[in-house]
């Protein structure tokens, strides 16, 4: 599927907001991702969908390597080939009325559409966002504009609460958790959460992104699962950590 770049601009150091116009009918749930074909690179790059409507979608990515750096140099008007609506996404029907949404760094983008979907489903989510330092903060106003309580933690204490996202959780926090972020963060949240269930979005290096190559398989309590197709969102009960 072809998409046209409407906007591709920095919103924090090294972090870019990419607005794409095109067919989003394949997108069914927050937490799904797209596989972008960046000109000059063989494998597609998986990037989560931050928000979408009928005419297009917003992605937020960090330029961390050659592919995402090349992507950051693409211009409005350029076209981008993408496979869309990949992965299972979050299920907003299976949580209590007061879920906790926890994100770290570039794991935060998909939680924006998730929070909107939770509100639309009549829930009252609370959000915790974790960053390294004040300059790296993005999407904070957008989350606040949704009218939900948002706590921010920074590792160096330059904004919000000093520490990690787990420091903004309660002791014996029983709220249902939706999380996305780096693996050490996910493991720490999973451990601290007192809720027996919850939904955690994982990352793996991928080739296809649609379930064909077994390149992204992890072991779960229910046997081998493909992060791209059976995930990226997994339930706490399935995770081996």
């Amino acid at each position: 599927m072809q998409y046209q770049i409407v906007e591709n601009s920095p919103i924090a150091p090294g972090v870019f907001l990419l607005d794409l116009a095109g067919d989003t009918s394949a997108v069914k749930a927050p937490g799904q991702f797209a596989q972008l074909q960046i000109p000059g690179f063989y494998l597609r790059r998986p990037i989560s969908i931050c928000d979408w409507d009928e005419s297009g979608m917003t992605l937020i990515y960090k330029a961390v390597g050659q592919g995402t750096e090349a992507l950051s140099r693409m211009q409005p008007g350029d076209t981008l080939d993408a496979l869309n609506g990949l992965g299972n996404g979050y299920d907003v029907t299976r949580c209590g009325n007061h879920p906790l949404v926890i994100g770290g760094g570039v794991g935060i983008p998909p939680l924006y559409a998730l929070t909107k979907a939770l509100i639309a489903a009549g829930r009252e989510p609370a959000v915790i966002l974790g960053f390294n330092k004040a300059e790296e903060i993005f999407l904070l106003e957008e989350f606040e504009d949704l009218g939900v309580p948002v706590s921010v933690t920074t590792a160096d204490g330059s904004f919000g609460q000093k520490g990690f996202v787990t420091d903004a959780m309660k002791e014996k926090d029983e709220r249902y958790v939706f999380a996305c972020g780096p693996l050490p963060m996910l493991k720490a949240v999973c451990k601290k959460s007192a809720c027996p269930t919850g939904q955690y979005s994982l990352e793996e290096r991928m080739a296809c992104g649609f379930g064909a190559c077994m390149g992204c398989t992890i072991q779960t309590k229910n046997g081998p699962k493909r992060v791209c197709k059976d995930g990226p969102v997994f339930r706490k009960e399935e995770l081996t950590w």
Partner: protein
Amino acid sequence: MVNLSVNLCGLTLDNPVIPASGCFGYGKEFAEYYDINILGSFSFKGTTRQQRFGNPTPRIAEAPAGMLNAVGLQNPGVEHVISHELPEMKRYFHKPVIANVSGFSVDEYVETCAMLDAEEQVGIIEVNISCPNVHGGGMAFGTSPDSAAAVTKAVKAAVKKPVFIKLSPNVTDIVSIARACEEAGADGLSLINTLLGMRVDLKTHKPILANGMGGLSGPAVLPVALRMVYQVYKAVKIPLMGMGGVSCARDVIEMMLCGAAAVQVGAANLVHPCACKEIIEQLPVEMEKLGIRSLQEIIGGAHA
């Protein structure tokens, strides 16, 4: 009207385009993108006697014009393939399929092949003696003419369907191994499997793949694959399924000119789920342009 059909050991394929093992799963994910019955056939994920989890992740790394994989033959085991995957496949693919088999001993190859041979849906058995991603098996059988012949002979004695032996490019003389397989009774040969390679993470100074090394495939390997198909075609009389780096109709024609009777497409499916559909649609267009009436007639055309 151009003619795309080719004959492979008595099996007539509507066209020579066949997704390669490990790059098409059991076809299900692709059936969501297009009607996969347009394919000549397809080779399903490498099957072993017992189920295998495969290697730890990362299993995938990028390469210039290609990719490395170290999946390590993840599969649910032959019994599950027969009880679950094949019956499910019947619902969306109605042609004979190619069963790709791997093993860790001659007995294991024989047992798995014999079980799949008994399945009506299986048209051809493709014996993978060239997987670079598992230790103590796979490629070990494909790197010497004697062990390649031993596997071939044992499997041939146990099955009725045509047997293709899938060769490794990670050898000094692929021709001698091809000849050994032919003499041992192989009905055909598939080549090439992936080329052993590696990438290192510049930040951590460690290999990117958890397995350290992996198999290179994609457009980067096309000239190597063409050369090996050309050399092997010259040396044997049995039909070849050529593969390695094929990503468009012109590559298919080139592979057939080198000697392939059918052409498999691997990694291209992973980056373009409709790759094979586009190749099949494009073949008649390219044939018209090049003045080719029948694909069957161009096989080996590059040879004097």
